[in-house]
Structure formats: structure tokens, C-alpha cells
């Protein structure tokens, strides 16, 4: 089965530059983006960037030990540019009464337990780096922090947002539709002063989205209304769309920006998480939207519209019932049919359950296929930062130069041993301009907090995560 994402022409930086009429690829791209002179002057050096890439549900620790021969196979082509860290634990993030999916997801990139249901326990890696390197803010016009993702579990913020301010609040509004992310990046030029208004505007738009969905329901096949009434509500819906166009239309896009992507056809908002019961989705639907999201996010990085943020491929504790034939490198890996294979509908038929069923003595065929898919899609995003389009002035790619941290929520999904569950949480990082080792699968066997603080220290960040009175034990094995 061929993915729509594959058949669609990827959004490329080169295409964008051609649109601008430039002959060569100017690097970085600040001038073309009409940013300030200050930003242009600053551009001669390779900018510091940090991004967190999250994927939901995790890779059980025993499977990580199989290296690239197992479910990590899709990372192999990028293996020389990654440091895969095994044995990282977030046990300290366990919060009584909150399930470990959430604790682990909150700990990813923060190494802290969540603070309630809508806040993380502290800053995330990317934001720590941002504050250190840009204490006065990013160059004007740049998106200070870009948060995006394709996910369908929304009940708690840390499930899907992975950039946090030091007080644990989200560092930027989640862009969950490719079009929204596009508008955030290439639409109006954000300045420091209008951040609040912009956020308000986005929320107000989400209100209108919910209203539109309600009107759409009453005009749809399951509407309780008769024909005449439906027609009346349809008129209302059309007027809302007209209003939406006028009130929230893209005011303009930066010169040379790619075409506005089509509206998402996937469920978003509340409909995407029907009470934790999960949704049906095909592999094509999932990957088409995710890859567009990934391409736009990567384009935002390669065009230097953003330097910090996070990207999520499926939330922590994600509940989807996936169907479709999964192929990789020309071979059929698996035929996804979660509900059918589990003989259950609702939450019981979701891929999440394969994690609950994990047993290292068994084949874990379905879990392996899902985990393999996650790695393929994470690799898809990472590889977009490792193309000729993504070269920095030092001749290396952004994947080489940026600090990109890939992580997830657990090292086990069975919910019967918190210590085991929050141990061995998969991590992979890039070299960050040669600061960290790459080309290795390393058994770090360290607390996540120490690993993260080691990363921060190596990135030149003076502040540390975690309790101030806790002795810091650097995980020196990761440093180049």
C-alpha cells in the first residue's frame, strides 16, 4: 500500500528558495526571510538549536538491546549521527496516582515528575538551551518556540507537548494541524509584543473550530434534523466558514513561503480523543499527515524560522486502532489491524494494549511492528535535517549541528512495576556540533536527570534541571 505522503511531493527548502528567485542556497536563510539586520549579522555562525522529538508508548528495554537489528532498524541509516542511549531511567518522575504513561511523558526532556495535569515539573531541554543562548530573545520575526505534533490522546498536556518553560507551563501553543503549523511559521511574522494576542487568537480559532464541528455534525449523515432544517443549518455553517475566512484568514505569508497546505482530514480537537476510547485510523492517513507535519517543521528549521521546540509523533498512552499494510525497505513488515487482532473495539482494540501485553519471552509481533513504524517515522523527520537542503555554514547538516533529543515515555508498558516501567527509557540524541558521541548504542545506565544535565552542561547551559540540592553526577560517557 503506497502512502499518500510518499506520493506527495515533499515540501523542500530548495523549492522555497527557487520561489524566491535566488540562484544559490543562502545559508542560513535569515536574509531571505527578511529578518532584522541583527539577525543577519548573527547568521554567520552556526546557530544553536535544540529540539525534542517525542514518540508515544516507548520501546521496551529488552527490544532496545537488539539494536538496529530489531525495531530500531529504521534509525540505522542515521546511526552515525545519533547516540542511542539505553538504560536511562526516570523513576524519580513517578507520581503516585497518575499512570506511568503520563509520568514518563512528563519526564521526557524535563527529568521531572509532572506538576498536576496541565504542567510539567520544570523546563525542557530545548527551553533551557534557548534561555541560555538567547537571553534577550530570538531574532525578531523568528518563531521563538515551535511546538507541533500528530497525536490523538489529549487528556493531559504532557502527553503531547514537550517544550516547557521553567515553571512547567507550555512554552508555545501546540500546532496540531499542518496548516496551523504552516500559518504559525510562514504566516504572520510574530514579534515579541504580540505573543499573547497571537495565542488568544489561536484559542479563539479553536473555539470556532469546535463550533464548526457542531454545525457540521448537524448537517451530516447522523444529524437528527430533517431535510429542510439541515439545509438551514448548512447555510449557517457556510456563513460561519465565510466568517472564519474573514476573521482568521492568513493575513499573508512571508515571501517565498510554500503553498498553504490543504486542510487536514484527520480528527483534531476533542473529536480526536473520544474519552480515551481511541480512534480508527489507517496507516496511510496517519503517515500522510505526520509526514506533512514533519516536512513543514523541518522546513521551519532549515529556513531558520525556528530554532527551538518539540515535535510529537503520537502521544503518550496513544490510543489508535491502526489498519494497513506496513512495508519497509521493500518488504512487508506487518499488516496492522489492531482491533481485528485484539478482537476488541474501543480502547481494548487499540495498539496501546500491545504494550500492556508485552512479554519478553514472546514474539510481541504487533508491538514490534508498531515500534518499528514509530522509528521509521522519527527517522523520516530526522533525515529531513540531513539533506543538502539542510547544510549549515560549517558544511555540516542541521542534524549534525543541532541538539535533537528523541525520547518517549516508558521502557516497559505493563503498568505492573513502576520501577521497570520508568527504567530503560529509550533516548537518542544528535551530536550537537560534535559535543556528544554519535554512531553508538550506549548503555548509559544513568538517571535521566543526570543525562539531561550532562547534555545541558555540554551545551554550555549554566542552570541545571532538578532539585538544587541534589548532587549532579555527570553521564560522561555520552560526551564526545
Amino acid at each position, binding site marked *: 500500500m503506497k502512502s499518500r505522503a510518499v506520493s506527495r511531493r515533499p515540501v523542500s527548502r530548495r523549492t522555497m528558495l527557487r520561489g524566491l528567485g535566488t540562484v544559490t542556497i543562502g545559508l542560513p536563510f535569515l536574509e531571505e526571510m527578511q529578518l532584522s539586520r541583527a539577525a543577519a549579522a548573527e547568521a554567520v555562525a552556526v546557530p544553536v538549536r535544540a529540539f525534542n522529538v517525542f514518540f508515544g508508548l516507548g520501546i521496551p528495554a529488552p527490544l532496545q538491546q537488539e539494536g538496529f537489528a530489531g525495531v530500531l532498524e529504521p534509525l540505522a541509516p542515521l546511526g552515525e549521527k545519533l547516540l542511542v542511549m539505553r538504560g536511562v531511567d526516570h523513576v524519580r518522575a513517578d507520581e503516585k496516582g497518575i499512570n506511568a504513561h503520563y509520568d514518563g511523558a512528563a519526564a521526557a526532556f524535563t527529568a521531572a515528575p509532572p506538576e498536576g*495535569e*496541565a504542567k510539567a515539573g520544570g523546563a525542557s531541554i530545548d527551553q533551557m538551551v534557548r534561555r541560555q543562548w538567547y537571553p534577550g530573545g530570538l531574532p525578531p520575526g523568528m518563531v521563538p518556540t515551535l*511546538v507541533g505534533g500528530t497525536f490523538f490522546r*489529549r*487528556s*493531559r*498536556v504532557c502527553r*503531547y*507537548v514537550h517544550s516547557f*518553560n521553567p515553571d512547567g*507551563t*507550555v*512554552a508555545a*501553543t*501546540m500546532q496540531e494541524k499542518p496548516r496551523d503549523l504552516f500559518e504559525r511559521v510562514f504566516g504572520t511574522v510574530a514579534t515579541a509584543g504580540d505573543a499573547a494576542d497571537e*495565542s488568544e487568537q*489561536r*484559542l*479563539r480559532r*479553536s*473555539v*470556532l473550530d*469546535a*463550533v464548526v*464541528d*457542531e*454545525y457540521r*455534525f*448537524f448537517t451530516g449523515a*447522523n*444529524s*437528527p*434534523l*430533517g*431535510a*429542510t*432544517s439541515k439545509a*438551514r*443549518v448548512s*447555510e*449557517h455553517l457556510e*456563513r*460561519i466558514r*465565510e*466568517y472564519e475566512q474573514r*476573521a482568521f484568514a492568513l493575513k499573508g505569508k512571508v515571501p517565498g513561503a510554500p503553498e498553504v497546505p490543504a486542510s487536514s482530514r484527520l480528527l*483534531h*480537537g*476533542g*473529536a*480526536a*480523543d*473520544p*474519552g*480515551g476510547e481511541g480512534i480508527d485510523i489507517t496507516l496511510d492517513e496517519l503517515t500522510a499527515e505526520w509526514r506533512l507535519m514533519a516536512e513543514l517543521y523541518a522546513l521551519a528549521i532549515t529556513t531558520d524560522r525556528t530554532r527551538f521546540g518539540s515535535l510529537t509523533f503520537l502521544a503518550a498512552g496513544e490510543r489508535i486502532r491502526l489498519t494497513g499494510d506496513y512495508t519497509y525497505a521493500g518488504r512487508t513488515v506487518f499488516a496492522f489491524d489492531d482491533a481485528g487482532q485484539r478482537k476488541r*473495539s*474501543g480502547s481494548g482494540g487499540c495498539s496501546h494494549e500491545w504494550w500492556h501485553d508485552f512479554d519478553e519471552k514472546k514474539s510481541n509481533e504487533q508491538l514490534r511492528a508498531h515500534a518499528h513504524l514509530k522509528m521509521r517515522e522519527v527517522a523520516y523527520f530526522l533525515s529531513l535535517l540531513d539533506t543538502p537542503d539542510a547544510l549549515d555554514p560549517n558544511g555540516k547538516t542541521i542534524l549534525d549541528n543541532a541538539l535533537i533529543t528523541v525520547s518517549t515515555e516508558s521502557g516497559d508498558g505493563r503498568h505492573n512495576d513502576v520501577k521497570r516501567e520508568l527504567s530503560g527509557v529509550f533516548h537518542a540524541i544528535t551530536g550537537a556540533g560534535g559535543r556528544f558521541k554519535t554512531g553508538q548504542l550506549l548503555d548509559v545506565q544513568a538517571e535521566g536527570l543526570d543525562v539531561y544535565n550532562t547534555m545541558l552542561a555540554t551545551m554550555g547551559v549554566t542552570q541545571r534541571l532538578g532539585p538544587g540540592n541534589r548532587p549532579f553526577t555527570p553521564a560522561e560517557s555520552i560526551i564526545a
Partner: protein
Amino acid sequence: MVKRLPGAVIGSLLPGLLLCITAAAVSSEPQPQRVRDGLVAFYDFSEADGTVIRDRSGVEPSLDLVIERPESVRWLGTGLQVEASAVILSAEPAERIVDAIKRSQGLTIEAWVTPASGEQSGPARIVSLSKNPSERNVTLGQDRDAYDVRLRAESTDRNGNPSTASRRNVVVPQLTHVAFTRTADGTTQLFVDGEQAGAGQTTGSLASWDASHRLSLANEVTGDRPFLGTLHLAAIYDRPLSPEDVQQNFAAGSVALNPPPTPAQRNALAFREQIAPLFARHCIECHDPAIRKGGLDLSRGTAALQGGDSGVLLTPGSAAASLLWERVAHDEMPEDRAPLSPGEKSALREWIDGGAAWPTDVIDPVIYRHSNRAGEVWVQRLTVAEYIATVKAAVGVEIAAEARERLPADLRADGFSNTAYNLGVDLKHVEALSQLAEMIVDRMDVLAFAARFSKSQSLSTDDTMRQHVAKMGMWLLRGPLDDREINAYCGIATTVSSAGGDFEQAMRFILEAMLQSPRFVYRIENHRGSGEPRHLSQFELASRLSYILWGGPPDEQLLEAAERNELRGQAALEAEVARMLKDPRAVERSLQFVEEWLHLDRLAHLQPDARRFPQWNASLAADMREETRRFFKEIVWSDSRPLADLINAPVTFATPQLAAHYGLVPAGEGFQRYQLPVDSGRRGLLSHGSVLTIGGDDASMVSRGLFVLHDLLRGTVNAPPPCVNTTPPPTKAGLTQRGIAEVRIANQQCGVCHARFEPLAFGLEKFDGIGALQSHDEHGNPLRDDGVVLFPGEAEPVAYGSSVELMNLLAASERVQTSLTWKVAQFALGRPLVAADAETLNDVHRVAQENGGTYTSLMTAIVLSDLVQKTATETAE
């Protein structure tokens, strides 16, 4: 009455013979019809062959069942005998049925079965909406010698336990009628052969029902809880049938008979639906009792059969022998009007050939003024006034000024501005609703409001936020939210959360979304069904009651009554309506009616010729408006007098300015109550300046007469023929308005219609264009106020000697009284009234008159009638 056959007889009969007899055959009385109201799935096994059992509910999409193990069953004459474990399953999830039941929170599962034995257990599934043996929405089953129903609700586990069971020893291997009902408040009942055999409580919402479950018969979906025996009939309703309904279905027997109408019935139906409207539109204008052109009166059956000057015109059974048909077929009739269409001609010929049934006494043209399409169900958008009242009641914010400034005014259609088909939406509405939602929430104490529904201030926990949203939504949106809606609104909370917002901000945006949602802006009702009218759900009814009686949303008491399924039964409903009619909102709503009916808004915009009417000013106009409001309030509420007294009560309210204008001696400052002397010429509404100004500066006999004809007598006249000069000549010395009218009436072409309405205004001639009493017009011509009233449908006019006599004549008229009923009913329903409503309206009027003919008795009769209690339904497109 159908009764179970005695056991001894059963034992001696072969099973096949028993089935051929069926319960219905025992009685020689006409077989009662089954109840269809609320039917959402129906299987009568009349296929007699094959592997598909059709859903014959008539509701689309139909939910047909497939027999997956055909070798396990055997078709019998009137049922399906399940001989071994079978799987009879809907191909698709029963989403439509589940959605309908979740909306109503009430249901009925009914089956006619012959169990193979009294030993089956499991329970053995007879009818099941479930996923597997331990997860279900509802299952009717047999548990040895009892019937048992597991229904999932908030108070049960996923398996529907604790269940509702019948008493023991009711399962016997013979034809049995089993029905289970569940009301919205959780009361459950099990009936066996029409008698209650068990009861219980399964309280809490059915929101957790899973729409992905399929419907199965005679087994669990998974095939491991078989029921053996014969299935004769299975039905599911989205409402609890009453014990009487259950009795009726039991009496109707196990074979659903819906005999086709006889030719005579079809002919009578054709008269009602096609011929009466045709005569009303094309013929009665000239051939009514008053005009009787050619000596023919086509408004009454007996008169029509008698014929006219040309002899007998109608030969029932033979169009060819009927002169009426011949004249119509050759386009000789209607005279001076467009000929009948081929379709109309065909209908007429078929009706005459079919026997020319005439099942009604008289054809009243007014009930055919609108085609039945005008009675179609249009979703009702809140009017501006209703929106303001709804916001005030729902969140306590006064938004009247801002709403009136921003929302486009509702336009009048068919005499009222709450006519649903005309309540369209423009871009400005959407913009205004969005702005207003923001303003409203700005003025709210959001946290305090949210705390009414939950103590939680948790932003994004699954269950707490969902429950919070569900409770808040139930109040704001006037009924329970389904999962989809809860998901949508919770999604706003998570979006706010992911943007770093807090609980208050999340609530704020959820409120804004709800305030713009279709369920807030419209009065959403379920119109889907079998095509036949159905009873409203409790919450739908609560909204109808409140918007009709109050012009606003249900209060907590009303919603709670709906939740407890208490809005049913004459006594309970009457008590609820009586409570609501005592509320000040009922008074305000009634004033909206009179303002709309008499179009009092126009007073603010009137600009009479200042030279002719120097005394006219804005405050006089405002006084006239207020006079009518106070008068109406006095008659309807303070004195609780019959509505007909609005026409001739010798009392009014006036400021000194208005009193002087009327020629009354001012009694004091502000509005004072005046007892009207006979020589004032004034009685009731028709002598109010607010109404008399309808005639314009020239006190037009046409305009005033048409108002009386249309609004008080429910008369009809056709539009003037083309090319007629409708500009009246001016009055002059020796020629009054009445004189001009008399010329028109005498004109052969004009008089047919003008005779019907202009004499109605003769009694008002002494009131000038702005309602002042005068004895002579501006030319010095003496004015009169005597005249005649030709009541629609009557042959002879009735004379009156003065305006006061005219008012008394009108007030005493049954025609006027029924017209008031129709007017109030039209406003209540928010749509034009059509022929299909006539019979019910007659009943409403009769009941209201029996109870004093007051506004409250009329409103009570209206809201208790099927006009309000039921709604039309449509099958899927």
C-alpha cells in the same frame, strides 16, 4: 383482546398449527394497530425465506439482520424457528438506534417469542445490543423460567448488572409477548403478555452506550449465549412505551397487520389531501354560500351534490357524467382565472370516479391557504428576543442592548417574526453571535458559574472535565450532551491547556463555543424517524414548553422533570404548565404575542401627514403601543377573561395625551384605566389607535377591512386580478371612504371579494387615520358606523348599527374565537398552520373554550395537544 391460549390446548396442538393460528386469530374483533411512535427497529419475519431479516421500521438507514448459520434455523409461516445455536446479526453497528436511545434516554425492547423450553439460561439472548458476553448496551434474555434484561447505565456495570428480571415461572414454551421499558429517570418495567411481571431501577445516563455494538437476535454477538425457540416479532423503540402502549401491542398480536386502505378510504383521503385544497384555491371564491355564482355552493358536500342553476353537477363514480368535470376539463372553469393543471384535473377526475367522498362538513378555504409544506418542520432559530432571554436565564447576563444592536432583526413572515422558515442566518448573525459570546463571557464570573456544576477546577483530567462539561452543557444546551459533544468541548480545554492556559480560560472558551453552538442558537429536535409523527423526547418537550410559554429556556425544575421523565401524562403536564403560566415570563411572552400579532413595532415608524394630523408625535405613538399592551395584560392576566373579550371590553388604558386624543376626559398622570362610555364608540382592540392606524392616513376601508377579515375572521380573498387599478379615488364633498367602498362592492368584478371585507370596516369609519373619533370627515361629509358582517362560510351577512355593536358581534362570534385560537397557536408553534393541523386545532379550541376560553386555558390546550407533544419525522433522504 389477544390472550394466551390455555396450556392444555397448546399441548394438544402441533407447533405449526399453533403458529398458523397466532394470537391475533383468537378474536373476531378488529385487530388493534401496533404503536409506531418511537419505533426505531422492527422485524416481523415476514420474509419466510432466505438469510436476511428486513428491518421494517421504515426508519432509514434500515438495520437488516443476517442469519449467519442458516442451517440452525427454519422458516415458519409467521416466524423463525431457531433450532440450534444461531447467529442473527446486523451487518453494521446499530449506531442509529444507539444514538436515538442516547438522545432520549428511554427505550423499549419488545418481542413475541415461543421459547423452546423453560430451561435456557445465560441469559439466553433474545434481543441484544452488545459486544460480547460481558459488555453490552442492552439485552433481553431468558434466564430459565424468567425473562431478564441487562441494561448498561451509570448505575450498572458494563454487563448491565444489576439487571431487571421478571418474576419466576413466566417462561413457558408457548407464544409469549415480552416487553421491557426504561424511562429517562431509570425506571424499568418488564411486561409479559401485557401485564407487568417485573420492575426495577437502572438509573443514570446511557451516555456510555457504545454505538459500535451490533444488534443480534437469538444469541450473543459472539455466538455463545443461544436462545432456542421461535421468534415471531422483535421491535425496539427510542422511548418507553406506556403500559397502555404495551397492552395495545400485545392486543395487536404477533403478526403485524397493516391492511392497505380500502378504495373508499383512499377516495376520502384524496378529498382531504387534494380535492378540498383544489376547491378552496380555485372554486370557492365564487361558489361559496355567500356568492353562490350559478347557484352553486362548492364548500359543502350536500350543497355541491344538489348542484346549481345548471342542475346536478357531480355524479359520484362517474367523472364522464359530471358536468363539473366537463367544465373543468374544457377549461371553462374557473372563470377568469387560470385553468387547473393537468395534475389537478387528473386528481379531480379520479376522485369523482372513485365515488366523490366528502368526509368533511365544510371546506374552509383558510386552512388551505398554505400547502402542507408550510407545516414542514423547520429547525427553530432563537429569535432575538428568545436569544436575549436564553442568555439571561442560562448565564445571568443581560445582553439585550448589545444583542439588539448587533443581531439582524427577525423579519415578519405570515404575520409573526418567529416563523421558523424565515429565521435565516446571515454573515452578520455569525459575527454577532461570536462577538456576543465573548461579551457575555466577559461579564460572567466564569469560575463561579463553572462551580455550579462541579467543584473541580481540574483542567484536563479525562473524567472530571468530561463530567464538568456534561453537566454544564446539559444546562446551557437544554439537554444531555452525547459523547461526541463532550469530546468536542473537552477538546477546547485540552487546547487551552496545551497553550499554557488555565482552568478559567478553558471554561471561558468552552462557554463561548457553547453559546455559539447549534444547540444553543437553535431549538434542535430529532426529526428522523419513520415518517410518521412521534412523541417528543422529554428534553425536547421541556424546551418546547419553555419557549412557547416563556420565550426562553427551561428552568432547572423543568429540566429535572424531563430528566425524571415526569413530563408525561395529562395531570403531570397540566401541573407543570400551570406552574409555568404563573411565572412572569409567561406574561412577557404573551405580550410578545400581541405585539407581533398587531405589529405594534410599526408604530415607532409611522409618519402620518403632519398637516392632517398635527397632534401626532412619537410619544402618542408610544402611548398607543403601551395602551394595547396594558389592555391585553388586564384582560388576559389581571382579569383572566376570555380572549374574545379583547374585542369588546369597555375599558382601556391611556395617558392624558392619549385620553384627550380619544376624546376622553384625562383622569390623571401617566397611564390610567378608563371605563369606556358607549358614545366613545370604542370597545376592545379594534378601537385602539395602535390598530386603527393600520388604515393609514386615509383610514382605508380596504386595509382595515382586510385586517378584520384575516386576523379576526380567518377569511381569505384572492389577490386582485391583473391590470386592475387598485389606487382608490380620493374622498371629496359628497363622497366618503364608505361611499368609495360601496362603489367597489357594487362593481361586478371587484365586489365578489370586496363585499367580504370592506363592510367589516364600515363600523370604524368614524375613526380617522390615527384613531381619533370624528362625526364628519375633512370635507364635512357625515360619517356612519353601521354596516354588515359576512362571516366566512355563511350565506347571509349580519347587520350592526354601531361600532360598539360591531365589536360585540365579533366578540360573540365562534369564528372570531377560533381565529384567536389559530393566531395564538401559530405564534406558539412558530409556523403557519395548515390543513393537517385543523382537526387538532378544533380540539384545542374546544378544550380551551370548555375551560373558560382564557389565554391560559388556550395555552394549556395547545401545549398539551399533539401540535406540541409530537413532531413530524422524516425518513433519511
